[in-house]
Structure formats: structure tokens, C-alpha cells
């Protein structure tokens, strides 16, 4: 089967809406199809990777552990926009997985290289 470059652009905070959770489901399936998968976290999407999320009091499933499991599916290309982190007072240490931090220009250049860009 053809291999294409798929990028998932995550721009929304988790738990306020379902996009982050359902994005993860597509990411896992795309990897199962042996495609070249990248995840980009920009704007409020960077909060999806924040350590220490506890959803007990909102009685919603905590899907943070799934980001930790991505590695096991050979999904290792996680990119975070530097400017988005900074605007939110976050640093790499606040994130629950290893990521590559890129400046806006580099993130944009990476997007241009993709065959398929899905934004959730």
C-alpha cells in the first residue's frame, strides 16, 4: 500500500470538547495502516499534553495515558509549537511525553511537506 505523510493538527484544549480524544483514535488507526504519522500541537492543543490532568471531578474519561502509549505504536513524531507553549506559560517540562519543540516557521514548513493534514 502507498505510504503517505499524515499530519494531525491539534489546536483545541482537551475535555472542553471531544476533538482531542477522537483525534487520537484516528492517529492510532492511521499508524495501523503503516502510514507516516506526525502530530502537531499548536494553540490550545498544547494543553492536550499537559501533565497531571485529573478528570475524576468532571466524571469524564481521562485519555492522557493514551499519549504515553503512542510510543508503543511507533508514533514518535510529536511536534509542539514553541510560541503556543510560551503564550500559555508552559515549558517542555510540563508535558507528559517527549516532543520536538519547533518555532512557528519550522512548524509551518513541516505542514507544507505533508500529503494529508487533518485538523481536529
Amino acid at each position, binding site marked *: 500500500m502507498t505510504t503517505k505523510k499524515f499530519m494531525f493538527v491539534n489546536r483545541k*484544549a482537551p*475535555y472542553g470538547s471531544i476533538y482531542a480524544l477522537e483525534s487520537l483514535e484516528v492517529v492510532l488507526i492511521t499508524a495501523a495502516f503503516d502510514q507516516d504519522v506526525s502530530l502537531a500541537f499548536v494553540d490550545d492543543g498544547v494543553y492536550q499534553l499537559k501533565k497531571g*490532568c485529573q478528570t475524576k471531578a468532571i466524571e469524564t474519561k481521562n485519555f492522557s495515558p493514551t499519549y504515553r502509549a503512542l510510543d508503543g505504536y511507533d508514533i514518535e513524531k510529536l511536534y509542539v509549537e514553541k510560541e503556543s507553549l510560551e503564550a*500559555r506559560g508552559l515549558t517542555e517540562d510540563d508535558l507528559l511525553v517527549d516532543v520536538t519543540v519547533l518555532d512557528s516557521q519550522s512548524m509551518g514548513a513541516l505542514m507544507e511537506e505533508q500529503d494529508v493534514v487533518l485538523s481536529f
Partner: protein
Amino acid sequence: MLHIINKSPLDRPTLDSLLRMGQSGAVLLIEDAVLAATQGHAAAEKLRALMTKMQVFALAPDLEARGVSDRLIDGVTGVDYGGFVDLVAEHPNCQSWL
């Protein structure tokens, strides 16, 4: 009046709208809006400006869900859902800025 804001200040303009139009009373940040009340966040200055005319609260369960409970800025009070109910009851009217 109790003003309820539920969206991230970096995703929607409701906090700005409230800053322009809000008069007095209190603001409760719920859902993604709680992100505004975290240390180092670009909207923290706006929140401080809001505090000069209103009391500011943030819903603790939503802070916890987003992993930012330990970063609440000074002057913002965390409340649980019971506190949310009390805030609505204590104010003569309320408005959700959707």
C-alpha cells in the same frame, strides 16, 4: 450579576467582551475558560484588569481536568460545583457569555 465564561481566552473573545461591557458582580470561569487563570498565561493581565471591578472564581474540577490546579493566579478563588450553585444563587441574575 454573575458572568459565566466557558471558553479559552486564546480561542474566543468572550473575556475581552466581558472586559469591555462587564460592570460589577463576579465572574466564574468554567470548562476551557479556567486556562485564563493560570500563571504565565498571556491572558493573566486581562484577568487582573477584570479583578479591579469584579471578583473572579474558577471551577476547580475543570482546573484539575486540565492539570493546572497548582498554577492558579493570586486573587482567583477555586470553587467546586456546589460553589458554582452558590454563586448563581447569591447573585440576582446571571449571564453565560456564549
